[in-house]
């Protein structure tokens, strides 16, 4: 099996990239990206609230993506995780498909959010889940290499902020001239004569034999300096307007002069430096030198994001396993802070990455509602169900170090995708369609399937869940809290059973965390009835009334959504629900709404808090 033999077979196949070999590797990476059909990615985080994370209990277990989550709340949870945790490794694997052959070029980048520019960016601080770090340690992760030698990065939004706050001297194009006042013409006249004086003095070869005293005196008077080996002159300015004026003047005097704008450390323009070049060729030489300096500085600022920019520009389809989580991280670390809603996020993401293929979604295409817990499980499922021979070919690295086998997951994803693609026949955009059984990337791109979790790991060897998912409308769901702490779902169900008309029919009870339970009704309208009766107080006497007088409370799904929207993650769910209800005490629409969405409910996804 590929996943078992993986470590051995692929050992040393993934090129490890750190700060020291990053710029050297970049050219090759660009080439591989541009030659590829697809690009697989996989990340290593310091923590996550995703479904595929370990089943260890958390302080607030309801923060993880649960079967009760809709797309929207799953996004909000993923957003919370992405803002909180950090990426330590980012593996990419550009690959070409050729029949059953896959030509892959895997790279694994070690990242660390080092504050190179001393601006509190890319991140002031980040969270770690000790269970994540421990399991990374078990896989032999080298934390020292990561922290000492990880590549840093800035997001696009951060880069423009850094530009403002940590400016470097650069060329600036001439903008359309603004109206000039009398003071402007006086200023221009003065600058003009000063530059001309200096220019003439530099050009005049007769003075070349002057002794050093005269030279230094002249330097003092003219303000002449050297820029590299070329003479230059600094002109102090105090506004952008004056910069433009100086640029106009310099353009008028001579073609050999190159002006660059020098900012002070607060980002305001301080001076214009005029550099004298000896000829047209020399000027071009200087211009290209400045250009490459700027590019180098930019690369230093962008860091690892350069790779994502290359991927973005290449417009290649991207393949990932848990897309919602990976791409919320990517968006928040490399593009901009995450927007408040899923729709805005998808829009913003599409601008950067037009086609993203979620393996979870592709798996769903093959077997409806089938879902693997992890990549190896999906691989073994495919292996059992279908005959899909795939040959993964990885050209050996020149400087491969065989002892390191980080980032293998990306190869597994590549392999899995190749197998899936034998069935789905997805054709990358640039290739012509081969027949009616093929489909375009666009048909299945950009549909993210949230990975939800169970607290109780099923110990089936294949890790596959049986088809017990039911679609449940969110308007058939009620959240309950205020019951005895430490009660089990079965106990609560027993207490509720028969206490109200809605609790006679088929209903399910499960705990979301220690403080809050979810009730799923299979008779439409039950949830509404219950909430309405509890609100109006027409419960009558009985066990439900006793429970209510002991503090039992209920709310509809909207309240839960609101909790997620408001980001009340730092408390138990009951407390968060309480806060929302208090705030919207008079707003009836909060508790119930007609336009319900659907969740995939699985009665097996038992949250068993007693399991200690």
């Amino acid at each position, binding site marked *: 099996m590929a996943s078992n033999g993986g470590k051995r077979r692929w050992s040393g196949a993934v090129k490890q990239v750190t700060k020291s070999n990053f710029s050297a590797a970049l050219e090759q990476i660009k080439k591989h990206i541009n030659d590829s059909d697809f690009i697989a990615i996989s990340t290593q985080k310091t923590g996550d609230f995703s479904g595929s994370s370990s089943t260890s209990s958390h*302080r607030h277990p309801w923060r993880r993506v649960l079967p009760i989550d809709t797309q929207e709340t799953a996004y909000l949870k993923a957003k919370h995780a992405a803002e909180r945790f950090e990426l330590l490794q980012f593996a990419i694997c550009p690959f070409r498909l050729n029949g059953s052959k896959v030509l892959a070029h895997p790279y694994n980048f070690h990242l660390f959010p*080092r504050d190179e520019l001393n601006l509190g960016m890319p991140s*002031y*601080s980040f*969270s770690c889940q*000790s269970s994540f770090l421990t399991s990374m340690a078990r896989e032999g992760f080298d934390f020292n290499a990561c*922290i000492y030698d990880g590549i840093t990065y800035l997001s696009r939004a951060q880069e423009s902020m850094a530009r403002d706050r940590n400016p470097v001297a650069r060329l600036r194009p001439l903008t359309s001239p603004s109206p000039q006042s009398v003071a402007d013409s006086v200023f221009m006249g003065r600058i003009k004569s000063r530059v001309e004086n200096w220019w003439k003095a530099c050009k005049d070869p007769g003075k070349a034999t002057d002794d050093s005293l005269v030279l230094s005196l002249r330097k003092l008077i003219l303000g002449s300096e050297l820029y590299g080996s070329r003479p230059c002159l600094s002109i102090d300015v105090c506004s952008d307007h004056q910069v433009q004026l100086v640029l106009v003047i310099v353009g008028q005097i001579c073609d050999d002069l190159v002006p660059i704008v020098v900012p002070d450390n607060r980002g305001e323009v301080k001076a214009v430096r005029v550099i004298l070049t000896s000829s047209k060729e020399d000027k071009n030489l200087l211009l290209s030198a400045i250009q490459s300096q700027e590019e180098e500085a930019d690369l230093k600022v962008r860091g690892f994001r350069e790779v994502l920019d290359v991927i973005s520009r290449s417009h290649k389809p991207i393949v990932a396993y848990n897309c919602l989580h990976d791409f919320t991280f990517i968006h928040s670390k490399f593009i901009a802070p995450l927007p408040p809603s899923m729709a805005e996020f998808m829009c913003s993401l599409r601008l950067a990455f037009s086609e993203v293929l979620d393996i979870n979604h592709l798996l769903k295409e093959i077997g409806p509602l089938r879902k693997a817990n992890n990549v190896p499980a999906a691989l073994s499922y495919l292996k059992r169900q279908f005959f899909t021979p795939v040959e993964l070919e990885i050209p050996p690295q020149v400087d491969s170090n065989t002892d390191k086998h980080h980032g293998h997951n990306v190869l597994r994803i590549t392999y899995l995708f190749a197998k899936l693609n034998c069935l789905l026949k997805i054709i990358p955009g640039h290739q012509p369609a081969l027949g009616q059984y093929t489909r375009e990337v666009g048909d299945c791109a950009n549909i993210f399937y949230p990975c939800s979790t169970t607290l109780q790991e099923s*110990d089936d060897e294949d890790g596959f869940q049986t088809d017990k998912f039911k679609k449940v409308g969110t308007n058939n769901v009620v959240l309950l809290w205020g019951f005895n702490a430490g009660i089990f779902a079965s106990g609560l169900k027993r207490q509720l059973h028969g206490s109200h008309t809605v609790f006679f029919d088929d209903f399910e009870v499960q705990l979301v965390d220690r403080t809050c339970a979810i009730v799923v009704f299979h008779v439409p309208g039950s949830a509404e009835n219950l909430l309405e009766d509890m609100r109006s107080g027409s419960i009558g006497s009985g066990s439900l009334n006793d429970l209510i007088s002991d503090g039992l409370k209920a709310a509809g799904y909207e309240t839960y959504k609101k909790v997620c929207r408001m980001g009340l993650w730092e408390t138990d769910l009951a407390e968060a629900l309480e806060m929302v209800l208090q705030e919207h005490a008079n707003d009836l629409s909060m508790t119930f709404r007609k336009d319900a969405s659907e969740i995939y409910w699985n009665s097996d996804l038992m949250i068993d808090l007693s*399991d*200690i």
Partner: protein
Amino acid sequence: MIRQWLLWAVPKTLTLVRRYRPFSSSSSGGGVVMKRVTRANFESALEGLRAQVQEADFVAIDLEMTGVTSAPWRECFEFDRADVRYLKVKDSAEKFAVVQIGVCPFRWDPSRGSFLAYPHNFFIFPRKELPFDGPSHEFLCQTTSMNFLAKYQFDFNTCIHEGISYLSRVQEAEALNKLSSAYENELTNSINTSGENLEIPIVSTADLLFTERIKNKFHEWRNRITESSCAECYVKEKTEHVMTQFQTIFFKMRPAVTLNGFNSHQMKLIQLVLRKHFKDLVFIHAQGEEVMLERKVVYTDSEEDKALLMREVLEDLHRSKEARVRSAVGFRHVIDFLVSEQKLIVGHNCLLDIAHVYSKFFGPLPSSMMEFALSIHENFPNIVDTKHLLNSSHVLQYLMKKNSKSLSSAFSLLCPEASSDSPKSAHSYVKFEVQTDETGLSNWTSGAKHEAGYDAFMTGCVFAQACAHLGIKFDLDSPLTNLATNDKLQGYINHLYPSWNSGTVIDLSTGFEKAESNYKRKYPTVLFSKVVLIWGFPSKFKPKDLKDCISKVFGAGSVTSIFFLDYTASLVQFSKEEYVNDFLMLKDILERNDNDPISVLHPLAELLDGGNTHAADYDTYRQICSAPASKVLFADQAEAAGIRWKTLAGCQNSEAWEATSMNGSSTFTGVRSHELPNTHQVSCEDILDSLYAAR
């Protein structure tokens, strides 16, 4: 006297068990041999340390953390009110992890005329040792602190792979509590299971076949046991029936079979079959010694026997779980020991360290500084902060002159002993020897600056030397009397700085904070009742703009000072108390009449531009600081703290004032301070400076 300096002293002959190493503070700062303690050698190191602590005159400690402030606006500012300052310390101790703890017992050896030091460097990691909520499943790392640790070659791999875990007292109690309630619950469940649903949901034909086959197999097995005597059956089975899945074994003196090779769904079916058809067969789902789950089916000959078996099994389970909790206590054993021995604890600027010790090893930090101080005092009756000692003793002030009070500079100044290049002075230096008492040298490393073990060692040396300067005699051939009760130290014991720039000292024995006599304040005293908090204003606003804007409404001298927490939030101190309310009311009115031309043209409209400008009193600042979230920008934090209104209304205001005005206005005066503010501090104070200059 010839001093021989052994740096990586690896003696060829390891017959000598105890080695005394005279040490010198060489300029490199390294060179002291200390014990490196990880998970692997923790048990043995703990034994050694116990004896050393028992004999010690004092114990120096130092901690390395993954960070100090969780957001820029959470840094300590000079003018923070005492309660806000404590909230900042509390936040830091709650959010960040401790990765290294240095513990160094010092003992005066009268026969040698020197102090014997035993520096230990413990690697700590909040590993999840128990299947439920452990020490801290999640912690924060401050990027700059991680870089700082990396700069001093901190070994993250050792820390994460090999660090010692811990449970606080509260966590241990909770874990044990949870265990016993789960135990009782299971016990009751195991006894009355009769009412359970006995229907077997048959989903597929495969399931049907499986249940039938299992039923038959168990019938066969039970019949064999009941027909013949057990011993016979055992023999018989070995020879006749070789059924792979049904090997009879003995479990708690009863015949049993181990279930192997079934998946979880099949296990569920087996359970249902047993419950429905076999009253005398019990399904046991027991955790073995290892993490391996073992499932067995046991034959019991009566209902009583069945109950007895269940009880036995659960008791076993309970005991093994309890043992696991006890072993998960980990590093806290060291702290517990320091507490029970009631030794004098020495730290350098150690309030944050102590707060970490409290939150990691005792329990959640109390809500007020007073409670915290008294609770610490109960556990550690004698703590000396060398930083405070150096600052407040005149003798030491004179010796230190204008030098920085940082640990390493105090160390090289006060303890230059035996470093050949230092001029001999009239002072007699206290001698220190580092003791190593183990033959295995793999656990010994050479200490370096900003390594917890070495910092603890330096702190202890500075303390002992400072004691000598204060006139405490360390005599040859005379044992040391209790340092904690020494008159010469009385003014210094249990006096700690709440933060490096507070200008106050907290007395742990009383819980009261008082101004430090010789602290020079950089800014005039802040009266908190005159302060208003503004946040969410347009990002282009600079301190000067804010001042101009408010001055236009309240007059030229109305603003005393402005402090930008970050570029989204600011504290403004008015010259008069009533301006606070006036400002808040005015803002509220302007916002209510949004489209009114007067509102649009009002001088404050500029400040309210963008519609996100919020304002409130100082207590709201406190409330926002106490919120558990830590957003980088203050404006985001306010939102995360659940603040939905834009202006704190007047009536709420006055009530809130009474509640916390006791800490409101304390005045401080002082002489001087020497501190190196960090970079962010500079930028904030620069803003203030520029503002004062602008006036």
